[in-house]
């Protein structure tokens, strides 16, 4: 039964159509059978019209429908994706199309209860899940002592777990699952499940399917043992079964690595590598390995392993050798400029090139690989040291280049009396090195602390082995150095407070299109500088891998900066709001931020305006609305990076890196897949057409690149209350 709201929406829609274009309401059941909705005409049908004497809307109703049409359309578009999903889930499993299964599968990726299951199992589940909903709180899903028939996952709502004599023992929420125990053990239900609120949605897996899929998981698993210990676990992969129609691919390709020792995984991947395919066509498992190996087999171990394999296999066959070379090439391609940061890696590559070119004299077949290898390695010889400076804006106008960890940076460190010294250290400098440099300048021998002081006066003391801390500062945060007994006396600099007045005067002189253009291109520059590996370092904790993530930090920082900029400007000048309207459309990520921003403001004035973005950024079901929108976009895309970071952190924290001392390669694959989204987003160059190509708008460009913001939350709240007094 449709809800009150939906019925109302339907009525408004019908009245609106009847008053504006009555010909669009038409029965099209003759076309439906042959064409489904694939012809170019849109027709509508309403339940009301099925009855003989459907009333035509009165003038009053027409008027009303005009007024409410916008809100209605918004409502419908909001529930649209959800409804679509539910429609698919209501279909009988045998009727679900490949597209349907894909949509369900994507949904499953975001369900907490399933996060430990492999992608294969999730794909299987997509085919058998059944949607179940209950309208009323208090409904009993099953009773303690009954036979277990199904496993449930909560999509929406919450339930109480009740045990006789004990009452409610716990409450389960969205993303939790229940009912598994009775299925696994073939035991009666250990508790009753009672709905805690109205209108709860569940996914259900029935016993038969549950057992088949779980049993299959085990049957599909191949374990390789050495000395009685598992060294490699493979799982049969469904997707490659389908593609093996070509026949040529060997049976190995039906299995994918689930876990294993680092050496065994490497060996396996080398053995499985196909040489007949083009180099450009990347082998995904290999790709995952190359991206993620820093987590379980650092370069310092990988290089000797590769070298060893190369030497040893040389005597066996030519193909093995070619495989190693290819892996090296792919590895070098992923690391790119990062290779230059480690002399050992450069030495390793040079050695490989030497060895390979020697072999090439004897074996002509690998000659073309030699040239490819050389192409990768020769640009490496230029070992540049760049000097950068973050505090003054002039060089921000130049196009950004990725920052490398051996680059050097100049930055100011303040003392408690607001005097400062400027030091020059490598990007990857540790806090200890920074403190030493400062102590040297100050001529101080005392024990000093390096402190991050925010504009609100909060202090964070850095640990001595933190690296490149400058990029982790808050927007108006500054680095201070002091003795431990001075810590309480640190006060923020006046400049940390941010501007006192909005920049409406200069902002009004700029066209919103130009601002959007320059913002987007600056965002893109920042995004472009982020190395894929930085995402992995960030997820696994950069102090663990001893790498910097400066470029990523600066990109993430930009999201905060823009958000604060919008809040600051609006708080200081409410009229600015009109300008956003035309400009948010140009950049998804900026639009998304604006929306997030508005929701922080306690203001009703803008509610109407941002409701469409609110819809996009609706966080429910793991930002599904946003994900669906982005999935439809073509690269280049600037993704909402915090969300991707969240995904990876979620995967990282929800899955162990090692299972029984074996590398959990499934986890590596999941994280690599997120990294590949980033790769996809950047797979096309960003060449926007400047709105006014003839002009370069230096003033807009410099404005956009050096936003002055207030980042003190208390100041902002005060300003915002001043703008729109709190209603009592």
């Amino acid at each position, binding site marked *: 039964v449709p809800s009150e709201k939906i019925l109302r929406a339907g009525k408004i829609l019908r009245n609106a159509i009847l008053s504006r274009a009555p010909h669009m309401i038409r029965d099209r059941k003759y076309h439906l059978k042959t064409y489904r909705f694939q012809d170019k005409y849109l027709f509508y049908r309403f339940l009301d019209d099925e009855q003989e004497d459907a009333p035509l809307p009165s003038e009053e109703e027409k008027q009303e429908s005009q007024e409410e049409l916008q809100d209605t359309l918004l409502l419908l578009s909001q529930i649209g994706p959800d409804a679509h999903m539910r429609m698919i889930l209501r279909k009988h499993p045998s009727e679900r199309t490949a597209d349907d299964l894909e949509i369900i599968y994507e949904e499953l990726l975001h369900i907490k209860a399933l996060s430990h299951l492999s992608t294969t199992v999730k794909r299987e589940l997509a085919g058998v899940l059944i949607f179940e909903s209950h309208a009323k709180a208090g409904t009993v899903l099953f009773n303690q002592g009954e036979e277990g028939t199904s496993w449930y996952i909560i999509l929406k709502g919450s339930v109480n777990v009740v045990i006789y004599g004990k009452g409610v023992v716990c409450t389960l929420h969205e993303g939790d699952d229940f009912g598994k125990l009775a299925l696994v053990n073939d035991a009666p239900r250990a508790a009753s499940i009672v709905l805690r609120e109205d209108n709860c949605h569940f996914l259900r897996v029935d016993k038969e399917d549950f057992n088949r899929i779980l049993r299959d998981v085990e049957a599909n698993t191949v374990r390789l043992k050495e000395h009685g210990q598992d060294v490699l676990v493979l799982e049969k992969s469904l997707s490659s079964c389908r593609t093996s129609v070509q026949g040529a691919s060997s049976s190995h390709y039906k299995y994918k690595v689930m876990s294993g020792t680092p050496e065994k995984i490497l060996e396996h991947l080398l053995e499985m590598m196909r040489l007949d395919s083009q180099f450009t066509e990347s082998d995904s498992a290999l790709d995952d390995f190359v991206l993620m190996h820093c987590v379980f087999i650092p370069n310092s171990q990988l290089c000797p392993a590769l070298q060893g394999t190369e030497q040893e296999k040389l005597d066996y066959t030519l193909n093995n050798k070619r495989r190693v070379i290819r892996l090296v090439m792919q590895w070098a391609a992923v690391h790119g400029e990062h290779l230059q940061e480690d002399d050992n890696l450069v030495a390793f590559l040079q050695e490989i090139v030497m060895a390979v070119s020697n072999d090439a004299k004897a074996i002509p077949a690998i000659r073309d690989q030699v040239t490819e290898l050389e192409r990768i390695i020769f640009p490496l010889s230029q070992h540049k040291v760049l000097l950068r400076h973050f505090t*003054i804006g002039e060089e921000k106008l130049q196009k950004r280049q990725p920052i490398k960890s051996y680059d050097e940076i*100049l930055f100011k460190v303040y003392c408690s009396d607001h005097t400062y010294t400027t030091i020059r250290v490598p990007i990857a400098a540790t806090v200890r090195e920074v403190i030493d440099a400062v102590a040297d300048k100050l001529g101080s021998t005392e024990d000093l602390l390096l402190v991050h002081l925010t504009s609100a006066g909060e202090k964070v003391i850095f640990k001595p082995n933190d690296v490149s801390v400058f990029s982790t500062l808050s927007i108006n945060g500054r680095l201070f150095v002091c003795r431990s007994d001075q810590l309480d006396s640190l006060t923020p600099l006046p400049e940390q407070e941010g501007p006192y007045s*909005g920049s409406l005067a200069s902002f009004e002189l700029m066209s919103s299109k130009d601002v959007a253009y320059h913002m987007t291109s600056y965002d893109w520059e920042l995004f472009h500088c982020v190395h894929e590996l930085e995402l992995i370092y960030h997820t696994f904790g950069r102090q663990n891998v001893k790498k910097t993530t400066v470029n990523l930090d600066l990109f993430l920082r930009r999201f905060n900066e823009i958000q604060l900029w919008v809040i600051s400007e609006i708080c200081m*000048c409410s009229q600015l709001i009109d300008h956003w309207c035309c400009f948010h459309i140009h950049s998804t990520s900026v639009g998304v931020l604006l929306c997030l921003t508005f929701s922080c403001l306690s203001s009703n004035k803008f509610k109407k305006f941002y409701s469409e973005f609110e819809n996009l950024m609706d966080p429910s079901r793991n930002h599904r609305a946003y994900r669906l929108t982005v999935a439809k976009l073509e690269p280049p895309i600037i993704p909402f990076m915090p969300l991707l970071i969240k995904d990876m952190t979620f995967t990282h924290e929800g899955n162990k890196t090692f299972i029984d001392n074996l590398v959990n390669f499934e986890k590596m694959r999941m994280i690599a897949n997120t990294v590949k989204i980033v790769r996809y987003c950047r797979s096309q160059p960003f060449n926007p057409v400047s709105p006014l190509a003839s002009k370069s708008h230096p003033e807009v460009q410099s404005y956009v690149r050096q936003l002055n913001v207030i980042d003190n939350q208390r100041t902002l709240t005060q300003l915002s209350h001043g703008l729109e007094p709190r209603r009592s």
Partner: protein
Amino acid sequence: MSLEVKGKTQVRLVFLGAAGVGKTALILRFLQDTFEPKHRRTVEELHSKEYDIDGVKVTVEILDTSGSYSFPAMRKLSIQNSDAFALVYAVDDPESLEAVKSLRDEILEIKEDKYTPIVVVGNKADREEARQVSSEDVLSTVELDWNNSYLEASAKENANVVEVFKELLQQANLPSRLSPALRRRRETFPKDTNFRPPMNKTNSCILS
């Protein structure tokens, strides 16, 4: 707007000049009475010291700048925010004197027609044997043509260092009320560049 009324005031001195002429050495000699013969490149440092002059608390900020790095934007900013300038060259380096000339032009351009206290300092006066710039020539240029003050000093031997700061402070107008300066070429309004009245927040929105 007299100093006594405010009870507290602030003045910023900035040291500019080519690389290795001894800007940092002069400052450290003045503040800490130390001397480090080895040259280390400075980027930018701000020192601060409080003085009590006849019951008036005066914060003297001394900005040490870089001669080695070229950051025009940074230099511009430091010139804008400063009250008095020490332009330092080394007596054994004629090129560093050229740098002083162009720096002076830059200061005048940024400060426009406002009265700008400038003291030209010939450092390393102890290196008489290596001298390449005659003090008479510089004296006539600075005092007659430019109408600024000129001093020779040695950070190494602590000669004339305190005098440099005295001259700067005197020209920056601070104690001039207490002891009339040599020069009284001033504007009608005393300068207090660094003092900004706190903005009234209710007025911060241009349009409301």
